[in-house]
């Protein structure tokens, strides 16, 4: 990098002074369009979830049974859970690509995806718990396999994110986290198998959609919310990837960049005195 070129100087000066210019730094045309689609989709999502769909009520032997309005929690719980699993799957794939192809791009994608996955998994657990209180009459159900698997996966993702933050060169950190990230998927399978065996049976809603227990519009809303979750995930992932890129730049060149900025300041300062 040439320190004395006037272009660099003015750029550095503008950079330190103007923070408004960096506000939308992770934005691009793609994310603007995608973001607009997601936000418009979210409006329809809210309308479907609260306006268009009916509560879940069935009449059996003259008695009203079902989840009533608590079913509306499913339109946020199910997409959160599926997005979490999608995100961790991407992390594992990305980790494999880091190990086999040494790809910087996949390293950043894997880390970004895991962070979004951890947020989604936390939301899936929280909303599931809130739904479970009125429907299963408990905040936490130890007999449920998917619940326990998701919880352990969430814990594992915290471990993965902790490993990503460890010190070391970019290369060391990438390889270390790639091994942990690749193991995520195998760990999940092992935990799922063992918990399923352990709990013997599950009380989780067994694919309510497939049984056609849910009528058309509710099923559509559920599928739609899953799709919206995937779109929102893609949107977040692009932004988070660009942040991960900035983090990498800062880690690698942060000190050099600071020196360049500092020299540029001194340069203009001394010029000011001499003139």
């Amino acid at each position, binding site marked *: 990098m040439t320190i004395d070129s006037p272009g660099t100087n003015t750029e550095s000066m503008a950079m330190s002074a103007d923070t408004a210019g960096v506000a939308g730094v992770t934005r691009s045309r793609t994310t603007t369009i995608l973001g607009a689609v997601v936000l418009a989709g979210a409006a329809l999502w809210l309308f479907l979830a609260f306006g268009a769909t009916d509560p879940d009520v069935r009449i059996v032997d003259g008695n009203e049974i079902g989840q009533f309005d608590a079913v509306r929690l499913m339109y946020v719980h199910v997409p959160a859970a599926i997005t979490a699993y999608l995100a961790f799957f991407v992390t594992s794939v990305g980790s494999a690509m880091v190990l086999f192809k040494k790809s910087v791009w996949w390293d950043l994608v894997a880390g970004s995806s895991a962070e979004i996955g951890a947020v989604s998994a936390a939301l899936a657990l929280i909303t599931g718990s809130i739904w479970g209180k009125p429907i299963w009459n408990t905040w936490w159900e130890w007999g449920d396999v998917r619940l326990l698997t998701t919880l352990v996966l969430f814990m594992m993702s915290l471990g993965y994110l902790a*490993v990503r933050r460890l010190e070391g060169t970019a290369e*060391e950190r990438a390889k270390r986290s790639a*091994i942990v990230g690749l193991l995520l998927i*195998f*760990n999940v399978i092992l935990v799922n198998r063992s918990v399923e065996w352990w709990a013997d049976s599950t009380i989780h809603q067994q694919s309510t959609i497939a049984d056609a227990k849910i009528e058309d519009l509710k099923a559509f809303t559920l599928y739609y919310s899953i799709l919206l979750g995937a779109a929102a995930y893609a949107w977040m992932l692009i932004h988070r990837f660009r942040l991960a890129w900035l983090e990498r730049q800062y880690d690698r060149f942060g000190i050099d960049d600071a020196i360049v900025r500092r020299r540029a300041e001194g340069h203009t300062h001394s010029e000011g005195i001499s003139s």
Partner: protein
Amino acid sequence: MTLFEEIALIAGKDLRIEGRSKVALNQIAPFALLVIVLFGFALDADRVALQTFAPGLYWMTVLLASILAVHRSVAVEAGEGAREGLLLSGLRPASVYLGKVVALVAQLLIVAIVLLGGVLIFYSASISDPVLLVTSLLGAVLGVGAAGTLYGALLGSQRARETVLPILLLPVLAPVLIAATRAFGDAMGTTTSDGWQWTQLLYAFAAIYCAFGVLSHGVLMEEN
């Protein structure tokens, strides 16, 4: 040197260090016994409860002790020039990994046996199927040793190792805790589950982690 000679060399080195320092015997095993006693206080010395939950409390204690043992196993390599020495020795990464696993498993076995005496005495646990007990114990300790060595090597001499290792390792060991508890429940006659099936799961877990450790240790050795 054959693979087995190399493994024996590394395992022998770690066990010789243990033989001189006696960290597992004089520090980790007493810690584990202490936890067993404290569980007794926490559960209000309820004889029936302690007897019923002896398998679970036992394995929870083994996992806690294994965290310490993994730290110790990594710390041995963190000494001055130890890593360079290992790299210069020209030993295959796979045999270094397996040697570390063997040494860790041997130390965990010491702790596990001391603890077994602990639960027999303090929790009045009784053994109805000794063969199942020993087989499942060995499988579980192999799994803990394989996963522990892998994640321990991953963290290396990181300053944050002490805090990151538990959150990394314990969720991974959840299947071992479940399977070993069930197998011990059968062997101690507190549950009616089929302990041999759970023992199979323990050996499958150990095999998967050994395979991963062997494959990834080369990458880890050249880096950390």
